[in-house]
């Protein structure tokens, strides 16, 4: 055994995988079940992973495929949204009430799955549009338009008038955003 087992690397990606699952399912229990399924699938199909490629992208792809195929099966069921993505978040800087992160989270959870997914992949987890397109099996332009529609919808939901646009991006607020280091719990 000279080459390292890629399965040893799995554990390093689980926190990110879980965050992705939560943002997709918006339900803590469902998210953890999805992560569990994904781990088992990845473990038993590890020979399909191309060493040297991005394991996180591979895992995210497995997870989203699991999610969408269960969504298709459960089409008539009402999605069980428990606000997992929003409620477990400890959000501090409301010192001036300008950074309405709670509102942002509520609005985010209302977006269609595909738009949330695109925004999380390219906006939060640092994948490129090309990587995200690859993971979702669609064209780069599709990911871009999903992300753009998601942002536009967020702007609508947050009733983003011109005034608040200025407020939210004033230097003081931007400094808070930029300086949001470790969150105390």
């Amino acid at each position: 055994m000279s080459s390292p087992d890629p399965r040893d690397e799995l554990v390093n990606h689980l926190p990110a995988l879980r965050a992705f699952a939560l943002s997709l399912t918006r339900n803590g229990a469902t998210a953890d079940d999805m992560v569990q399924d994904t781990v088992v699938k990845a473990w038993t199909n590890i020979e399909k992973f191309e060493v040297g490629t991005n394991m996180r992208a591979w895992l995210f792809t497995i997870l989203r495929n699991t999610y969408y195929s269960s969504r298709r099966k459960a089409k008539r069921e009402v999605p069980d949204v428990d606000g997992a993505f929003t409620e477990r978040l400890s959000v501090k800087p409301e010192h001036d009430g300008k950074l309405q992160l709670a509102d942002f989270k509520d609005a985010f959870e209302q977006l269609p799955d595909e738009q949330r997914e695109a925004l999380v992949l390219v906006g939060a987890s640092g994948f490129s549009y090309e990587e995200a397109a690859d993971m979702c099996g669609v064209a780069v332009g599709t990911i871009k338009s999903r992300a753009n529609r998601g942002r536009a919808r967020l702007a609508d939901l947050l009733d983003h008038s011109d005034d608040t646009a200025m407020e939210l991006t004033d230097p003081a607020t931007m400094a808070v955003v930029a300086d949001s280091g470790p969150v105390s719990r």
Partner: protein
Amino acid sequence: MAQEGNQKKQRFEALVDDNLKRLYSDLVQEELPDRFKDLLSQLKDQDTQKSAKK
């Protein structure tokens, strides 16, 4: 006018991404539940048993 609107749009987009990054990094920093560590060691044990039988 159009340019001003564009700038606002860009700033809003940057703000969306900032917010998303904060939400996401909060989630990533959560401690991994034990069930996943248990699952991985279970999978590992199964493999060890399988290869021992061969």
